[in-house]
């Protein structure tokens, strides 16, 4: 229990630290939200200055930070200068869209990585193993950006799948099955890119830790007992190999909100990525701080989950 308490306190401190850093950096960057209006000859400099003070942008940093903390505690998480609304409502919808994408991709990646990784570990050194390793090398070598652009090019040329967005214009008029198909068609490419990006690393780690375990004495003993191959792999070896994989799972959870920025921006997926990019470019600072805090929260959640799961699954950790 004490361990949990310590971790929670530590997590809160981390969140506070990140929020302070965010504010500091937003101060460093020149320009403020209303600067774009200066370029409009029909808006006077006084109006711009008045708008700045109306939203409290001319207050010193500690005052602004204090007001933001108050707003966060109230549940608004700050106020968006662009949308004239609390950050919370903006974030929730976008985060939901991002999570839909990344959760699906992560799930798929793990669902593929575990069985395939276990299988090629059992065939270590043989042609299946070499082929898969070569495949993952190829995937690792092609940056996500290139894969996304390549797929975009293919889609634009062949019109097989929609070239961006989350749903079609006529989505509301579709039946349930139609809606499902439409969403799936739009998800195909972004999820595909994320799976292709994440799979190689997962696969290699699963394989590596399985290979370790398969060499160990207790596995030899189990084989000697004549236990069937399938049971051997999944019931005996995999749980022993789980330790490093749990940390990896933690990392996957940690990256749920932040890992898809590039794909979302290129494919126009209405998630947290494009919101964060636009807000940081236009200096809508509270939206940026809110979005960064949200992804930090997931980071912390991920590592916390990993720690808890480790304790539950691996008895060796409990003993230590």
């Amino acid at each position, binding site marked *: 229990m004490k361990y949990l308490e310590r971790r929670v306190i530590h997590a809160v401190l981390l969140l506070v630290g990140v929020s302070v850093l965010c504010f500091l950096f937003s101060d460093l*960057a020149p*320009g403020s939200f209303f*600067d774009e209006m200066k370029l409009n*000859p029909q808006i006077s400099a006084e109006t711009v200055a008045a708008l700045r003070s109306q939203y409290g942008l001319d207050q010193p940093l500690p005052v602004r930070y204090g007001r933001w903390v108050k707003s966060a505690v109230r549940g608004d998480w700050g106020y968006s200068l662009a949308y*004239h609304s609390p950050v919370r409502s903006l974030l929730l919808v976008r985060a939901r869209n991002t999570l839909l994408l990344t959760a699906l991709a992560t799930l798929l990646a793990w669902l593929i990585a575990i069985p395939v990784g276990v299988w090629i570990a059992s065939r270590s050194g043989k042609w299946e193993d070499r082929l898969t390793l070569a495949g993952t090398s190829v995937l690792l070598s092609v940056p996500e950006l290139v894969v996304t652009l390549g797929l975009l090019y293919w889609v634009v040329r062949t019109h097989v799948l929609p070239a*961006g967005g989350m749903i079609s214009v006529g989505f509301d008029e579709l039946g349930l099955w139609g809606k499902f198909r439409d969403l799936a068609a739009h998800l195909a490419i972004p999820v595909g890119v994320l799976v292709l990006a994440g799979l190689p690393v997962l696969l290699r780690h699963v394989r590596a830790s399985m290979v370790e375990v398969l060499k160990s004495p207790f596995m030899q003993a189990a084989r000697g007992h004549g236990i069937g191959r399938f049971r051997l792999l999944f019931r005996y070896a995999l749980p022993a190999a789980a330790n490093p994989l749990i940390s990896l799972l933690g990392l996957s959870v940690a990256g749920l909100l932040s890992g898809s920025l590039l794909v979302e921006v290129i494919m126009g997926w209405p998630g947290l990525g494009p919101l964060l990019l636009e807000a940081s470019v236009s*200096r809508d600072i509270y939206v940026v701080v809110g979005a960064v805090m949200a992804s930090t929260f997931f980071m912390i959640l991920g590592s916390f989950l990993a720690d808890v799961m480790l304790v539950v699954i691996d008895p060796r950790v409990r003993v230590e």
Partner: protein
Amino acid sequence: MHRLGCVATLLSALSAFGVAGFASSTPQSPQPGEEVQVTDGQVGRYGGALVVAQRSEPKTLNPVTAADAPSREVLGRLTADLIHINRASQKTEPALAKSWTLTKDGRIFTVKLRHGLRFSDGQPFDADDVVFSFQLYLDDKINSPQRDLLVVGGKPIGVEKVDRYSVRFTLAQPYAAAERIFDSLAIMPRHLLESSYQQGKFTQAWTLTTPPAEIAGMGPFRLKAYVPGQKVVLERNPYYWKADRNQNRLPYLDELVFLFVGNEDAQLIRFQAGETDIISRLSAENYAVLSREAGSRGIELFDLGPSLEYNFLVFNLNDLGSKKLASTAAKQAWFQDLKFRRAISAAVDREAIVRLVYAGRGAPLWGNVSPSNKFWVDQTLPHPPRSIDQARELLKSAGFSWRDDGALLDPRGQPVEFSIITSSSNTQRTKMATIIQDDLSKLGMNVHVVPLEFRAVLDRVFQTFDYEAAIMGLGGGDADPNPEMNVWLSNGGTHLWHLGESKPATGWEAQIDQLMQKQMVQLKYKERKHLYDQVQEIVAANLPYVFLATPDIVVGAKKNLANFKPAILDPNTLWNVEELYYPSGAHAGAKP
């Protein structure tokens, strides 16, 4: 028509399940006593939805506080103004005001409103709404971006109700083309907003999440739904005050959908895939790509000629006294020399800019008024061709010389080296900077191109003055010179080359001040033109900006969209959205 009747009944039955009291959006025939404006466009048929892609999401549905372009694009379809500038003819025409009179001294403007009109929620429209709307625009606690339009001669415009359908505006001084001020000043419904205004909560009213029943306007469409991050759907305003020649109430379209797609290339991809029906502000290269496929995709493309915007190279001529910018201050000695600027103007290859940046779809500029601004461009302005030799002559006569390796040295023997900042997100201006860099290297100048994030550029140009030269763009709003006052007046907020002048720094800037002030109060067009011509000539002779080029306005639309009349003024494609219709049956838009 019978089928339309069934559909109408079905629609009204369905919408009865919606918000209580919110009438269906089938068009009602004009009532007696309602002074509808009759358009003279082609008569169309009802039905269909138009889908348009926007580069980013609108941020608000409040016309008084909206400042960003996507919000204004949507709001322009939801609201109407008193006097409207017809985007095709560039002249003003009656809108909610059916007629107006101006006293001889040009200071009192009396406007007569149309009778019997209603807001999109069915409530009546009258002078109280007009007075209330101007209260909102002029309120100095709301700080609307449009407030300064209504401040003439240092005083805000005076607004008073004369009777139920007349309003009187009083200007502190005569103002040329006063009626143009009213364009795009949306009239707001007093019955929905008065209470929030009096509680001081107006700036939080009409955000994107406000329920559609609480929003009403006089525009051709009204809000139906908003899906965050994805689209906003507008439906026909059944009470819209325009009708066609056959007394069919406009608009013809049932729905107008704005999709948010992120950037110009995504816009293009959707258009090419048939998911959207209109695309505006196409870049020239994308035009070339699309035109190859146009026939097979049922798309038609239009090149409308040069836009009204002007791109230019500006040198930092600000007073750097109190700021610690020693190296920039030293370089100002070059920038302030007129011969230096003239040499640069002579060396810039404008034709290459048009060819490489705009793929030939643009026009070179030697002044701030684009050739397509027929009413105001000074036709007698010289357009000197590019000449490196002439540039070298000018530099020589200014005391510059060349080192053996070709580098240009100033009269004190220092090599000429400076940087040009541009917005990294604007690929066209960055390309222009690269071309200019290469051009000036032929004069022996060592020029660095520094693309910076847009806000950083604004910060340096407006605030810190920490830059040497920049490529910027202005204009494009209206053809009339008045919106450009702040650019040319020496104490204007966008007098970019030398901001914060309390009095004109040079004789020619003083001359420009006088001319601009004069043309602002000159009510006769011919005299105004003469004054503005002189301004253009002084600017061309003194080159505070080295003008570069302007892109053509290129738009595209589905072939089966009728009454499509794109114009050079913004919004190029949707300004007559109430007249657009689909002649042939079903809308060939988004695929299910």
